[in-house]
């Protein structure tokens, strides 16, 4: 397959290098080594890059940056850790601010040893990375063809950055509908999303129990279900659910724009309903102009029971359905469900 082998575009990031390896990376571009012979371009833009070249050990400040850049690289992508510091932390390993090599933050495909890594070694590493890149490209094509093999799995805290990146991408279509970027899902920070794994989201204003509290209460983790849809190791969709008194509150159904209209959202909704075996009633909400979401939910048996003005632009529409398909009362109040539930582990 021509293409990937002949045209690797590189993004170079200095995590906290002493600049020794950085200079050697740049030396590769000079007339003596001229990596452009192999079609290499040193781009400054993650969205154009194929290979993410990181030098230096990762410190607490560059951690978030590396993660952010990594998720901005379009698939297929390869990470090359250049120099011993990027590999393991090197002589800085024990420093108070160092979290280790690049692989402590993102998956690394190729390690180039050396202090500083020599240009020949870096070029060799890039060439090795090309083989990995090609493999990943094949895997990606397979992924596009195996969308029906999507796995729905439980997400955990380590998925938070990827899910946040996905959420920001997925909610862009909503932002466009309302012409407004102030949607809570778009404003969410990584810390807040990580909290969603352990806390009731107090921003979900249907959750009466937590509305009065300024701090979101930490709850029994069995009450929270956080699902992800995974194809060949990449998260393409996600959904969150919380159960209180027999009602499961479902929120943040997100699917990558590329994979929409292929039943991923429906599967996520169905799976999360299964994940709350004791819930008698399910509740979800969406913006009043989000036609796709409303249609999706009504196809699965959800019915609107109340609306609430969130801000001048968005009005939340609340939908509900009961377990056996009958619709609970639509008098605007959640029905009291007797807590005749099993052990908390199943709740």
């Amino acid at each position, binding site marked *: 397959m*021509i*293409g*990937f082998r*002949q*045209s690797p*575009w590189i993004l170079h990031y200095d995590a906290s290098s002493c600049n020794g390896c950085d200079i050697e990376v740049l030396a590769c571009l000079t*007339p003596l080594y*001229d990596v*452009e*012979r*192999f*079609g290499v*371009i*040193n*781009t*400054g*833009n993650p*969205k*154009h890059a*194929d290979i993410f070249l990181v030098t230096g050990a990762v410190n607490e400040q560059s951690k978030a940056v590396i993660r952010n850049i990594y998720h*901005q690289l*379009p*698939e*297929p992508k390869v990470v090359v850790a250049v120099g011993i510091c990027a590999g393991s932390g090197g002589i800085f390993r024990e420093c108070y601010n160092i979290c280790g090599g690049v692989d402590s933050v993102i998956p690394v495909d190729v390690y180039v040893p050396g202090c500083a890594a020599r240009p020949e070694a870096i070029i060799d590493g890039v060439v090795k990375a090309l083989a990995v890149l090609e493999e990943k*490209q094949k895997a*990606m*094509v397979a992924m596009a063809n195996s969308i029906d093999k999507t796995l729905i799995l439980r997400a955990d805290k380590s998925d938070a950055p990827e899910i946040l990146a996905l959420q920001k*991408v997925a909610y*862009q*279509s909503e*932002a*466009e509908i309302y012409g407004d970027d102030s949607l809570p899902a778009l404003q969410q920070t990584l810390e807040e999303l990580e909290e969603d794994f352990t806390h009731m989201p107090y921003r979900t204003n249907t959750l009466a129990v937590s509305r009065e509290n300024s701090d979101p209460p930490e709850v029994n983790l069995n009450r929270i279900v956080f699902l992800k849809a995974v194809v060949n190791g990449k998260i393409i969709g996600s959904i969150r659910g919380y159960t209180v008194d027999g009602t499961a509150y479902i929120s943040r159904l997100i699917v990558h*724009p*590329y994979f929409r209209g292929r039943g991923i959202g429906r599967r996520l909704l169905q799976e999360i309903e299964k994940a709350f075996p004791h819930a008698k009633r399910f509740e979800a909400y969406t913006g009043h102009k989000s036609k796709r979401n409303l249609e999706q939910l009504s196809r699965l048996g959800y019915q609107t029971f109340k609306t609430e003005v969130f801000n001048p632009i968005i009005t939340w529409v609340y939908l509900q359905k009961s377990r056996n398909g009958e619709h609970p009362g639509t008098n605007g109040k959640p029905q009291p469900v007797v807590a005749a539930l099993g052990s908390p582990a199943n709740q």
Partner: protein
Amino acid sequence: MSPWLRLLLYLVAAPIIGGLLAGFDRRLSARMQARQGPPLLQPFYDVIKLWQKENIVVRRSQNFYILFFLLLVIFTGALFFAGSDLLLVIFALTLAAIFFVLGAYKASSPYSFLGAERELLQMMAYEPMVLLTAIGMYMVTKSFHVHEIASHPSLLIFALPGLFLGFLYTLEIKFRKSPFDLSCSHHAHQELVRGITTEFSGRALAMIEIAHWYENVFLLGWVYLFFGSMPALGVAVSLAVFLFVILADNVFARLKWQAVLKSAWLVAVILGFGNIVVLSLFR
């Protein structure tokens, strides 16, 4: 040659020629910097790779604009090579560029935003000169139609030397070469990341690249018009102009946008308008 045949030839051959020219450009630039440079087919490898990459978007509609940018650039060249009205060609070209700018605006990132603004400034800089070139050609040949201009018996360059030089100046802007590569440099690492193309990846970026190939062939076709009565000379000068543009790219540093705008309009007034005034006085 019938217009339909020319049109078909353009649609098929332009991306091939444009891609080869881009590869030649990169190789020659590398040689000027004492490097070996990439293979001649490198631009094709790049586009094939980009086509298979994931398409990350900020807003989905941004790629829609890029599709129209590509289609309109092809349309512009198609009008030109089918021998249509030169004014219509210019308007189609402007519309294409506007779609590109809209796409970059839609991405709403500060880098592509600033790149889009600079692109608009560049358009302001080159549009007057391009229009004056069309007017000058009309004054000599009494027609705005490309096929009539191309088949005019005299060499247009003798009547329009000022316009030719002025057009050369605008070509530097259109080819996105130094000293006028404000909105998006071909060379990586600039202050705007990648300027107007920053937020485009995968297929959208490939489409932008292909659009540039079509555009470059169309612009060199326009250079040919100045030498319409001697085809061999016309092709030779077109290629020489391309070499000159590469040389200038490697020799000059980038100008500020104020300097670009002022100098381009100065060139348009002195070389372009001056040429037209002289032409109308001595006829």
